[in-house]
């Protein structure tokens, strides 16, 4: 029975919707009244971005919104945990985050703005800090946009403020990519189940679960 429902969702879950009231309630409850304005700004961003048909412009708006408003901070400092994946509302409300928090917030926002999930990938990359010649490397996460399945992706990250094609990011070496295609619905089936327990979920599934409880649908 569950399995049948899951397959039905599978095809529908291209974009992500959200329950604005519930999201607002979540964010004000956690980050106080001053976050209300941040949420309304975000809500306006989503509405505006939805209206734009050009995907490049959509990317531009969302990338700018988060890069400008969010201060980079290591997880240990921001969340008192060594590696914490914050939900979009946490990143927005807190105003702080590390690389994957940027990427995730942008990913969710773009999906909420009707971007096709198949065109987006979250990618683990090896980043050379201080340019391609640098020896200092760091584990990093970026959001990639594929205009077509075999196209060269555009890279959205927090190290470089503007969006560039992958070939212009020699400082990054891709390792593994993923998105919520197929999982979002799958998580909906298992995520609500108490018997499975959050601890047995992957970090990604755990995040999807939390986003769902915040008000993403």
């Amino acid at each position, binding site marked *: 029975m569950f*399995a049948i429902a899951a397959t039905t969702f599978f095809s529908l879950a291209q974009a992500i919707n959200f329950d604005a009231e519930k999201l607002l309630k979540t964010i004000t409850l956690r980050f106080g009244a001053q976050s209300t304005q941040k949420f309304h700004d975000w809500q306006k961003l989503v509405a505006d971005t939805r209206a734009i048909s050009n995907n490049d412009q959509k990317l531009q708006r969302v990338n700018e919104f988060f890069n400008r408003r969010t201060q980079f901070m290591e997880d240990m400092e921001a969340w008192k945990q060594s590696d914490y994946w914050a939900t979009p509302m946490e990143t927005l409300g807190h105003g702080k985050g590390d690389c994957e928090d940027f990427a995730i917030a942008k990913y969710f926002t773009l999906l909420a703005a009707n971007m096709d999930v198949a065109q987006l990938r979250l990618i683990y990359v090896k980043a050379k800090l201080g340019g391609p010649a640098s020896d200092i490397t760091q584990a990093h996460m970026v959001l990639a946009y594929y205009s077509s*399945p075999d196209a060269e992706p555009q890279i959205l990250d927090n190290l470089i403020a503007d969006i560039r094609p992958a*070939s212009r990011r020699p400082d990054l070496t891709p*390792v*593994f990519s993923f998105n919520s295609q197929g999982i979002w619905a*799958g998580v909906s*089936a*298992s995520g609500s189940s108490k018997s499975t327990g959050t601890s047995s979920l*992957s970090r990604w599934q755990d995040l999807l679960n939390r986003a769902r409880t915040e008000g993403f649908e």
Partner: protein
Amino acid sequence: MSLFRQLMLAVALSTLLSFIGSAVVSLLSARHYLEQQLILKNEDNATALALLISQQSKDPVTIELYVASLFDSGHYELIQVTNPLGKTIVERQTPPDSGGAPVWFTRLLPINPTPGRAQISDGWKQYGTINLRSQSRFAYRELWSGASSMGGWLLLAGAFSAWLGAMIIGRLRRPLGRVVDQAKAICERRFSTIEEPKVPELKQLAFAMNTMVGRLKAMFDEEAARLEAVRREVNYDSVSGFANRMFFSSQLSELLKSEEKAQTGSLIMLRIIDLGGINSRLGRLDTDRFLKAFCKAIETVATTQPEHLTGRLNGSDFALALPGLEDAEALANELHALINQETSHFSDGVPVVRIGFGDYQQGMEPGPLYGMVDSALAEAEASGENKPRRAHATGDAKRPASSVQWAEQLGRAIENGWIKLVGLPVIGFGEKKMLHQESPLRMRFLEEGEWVTAGLFLPMATRLKMTSELDFAATELAMKQLASQPDGGDLAVNLSGESLQSESFRKKMRELLHDHTALCRRLWLEVSEASVFANIDAFRAFRQDLMAFDCHLGIEHFGREFSRIGVLHDLGLHYLKVDGSFINDIDSQTGNQAFLEGLCQIAHNIGLLVIAEGVKRPEELATLPRLGFDGATGPAIPRN
């Protein structure tokens, strides 16, 4: 549906429901758990494979090798790599396998984990997507073996709880069964109490029923006591406790007529010498004491004889009838000596009593018999001889044969079938005009001999303990007669109490009745009151034997032991035949009318028919319905 069956069903259903419920819940949760594990496995393996391929060169052979090596472990249903446009690059697939579980089971509890998906990238470029589905065979096998062992346990536990339920219901059933039996017994007019069960509800029920039975008994006893008082007042002398003249004469005339009584016997008459003088000498109080001692002496001697009758004919005259006693001389002497001894305290050695005695034969009238013995008494008085005087016999005394000859003759008669039943009608006053035919036995001792009545051979048969043979032969004859006359009326057969004592007789009777179950409805069996009370345990046992059959059971010659009617209430009898001595001149005996009216009432209360015996005159017959009798028999009823 019976209460027990409903209880059983309720227990079975609730057990079944709870077991099925728990089985379903645990199967569902097991299935859910297995499904979750498969989903995680799909995800993990897809991700691991995608990560591995992403790091390697992407030539089709390498990818196929990776996919094949994972797939060939046998734990996968499907591993598929598609390019970003959805075209399949590599695919390995086996059909789903139920792992030994039956198809209906996999349909009932399907395990459908979502497949794992992961992206393969080639540098920045997308290379494809992995779709991976694990084999669900293992999950099905686990689930099926779990379900089968749970089914086994369910059966085991179900059997155990059914056994437990049966035990509990059995525990309930026994006391309830007793209550039901009591209720049935009440319907059959047997009033018995039962032990109160421990279950509170049943205890209340049993308590209520016992109380009701107790009240009925008390009412019954009270009424019986009242009637007994009436009977005694009417029929008995208050000082001696002996029958008064009227009642004694009535009993004596029964004795001289009844076919069942011994054909010969003795009558002893006693007269107190100068009772008036004694009275003035001793005073009223001591005279009463003297009379009591006198009567006690008579009673002591009389009780050594069966079916004796005692009477006080007037102030100073007493009489003692002893059926079956051929020569009363020894007994009269004994009586004489005992009286003198017992009353010596009052008499100062002066003779106090004169005694006359004589023999009688059936067919004599009471008047001449009295006259005969009375004249012997007169002779004794006149002669002044201080010893009993024998009366001169009037008829010719037929001497019976010896015991050995009797035994031979009785045996031969039964063997040759020289017996028959005669029919004496018993009419009913209600809807049924003919209740049954009383069927006393007649016997002849020669092939073409004369038929003789029971009074001639029955006392001898009793002495020789041959009544059971006679009774069985009579019942057998009655059965034959009933069978040969399907539309004929009912038949009543007399049984003697001595027969009932015999185990083998009762066994033969049971077999006989069992062979003719359909005819039992038309068979009435009766035992005389004296026999019933002398053999009460045997009678009870016989009553139990008859429970299985439809025949009627009654007591004949009823009335003398009326005070013991309380013993009869739980026997479940069908009818009483009231002794002829109570019916004698009933049209003019208002005292006995009151007694019989009460008797009828009390008998009707416990569901007994009441029949009058020895009705001689139409006037007597006419009085009976008013008193509550249901039927009558006797010379006044014409034989058809």
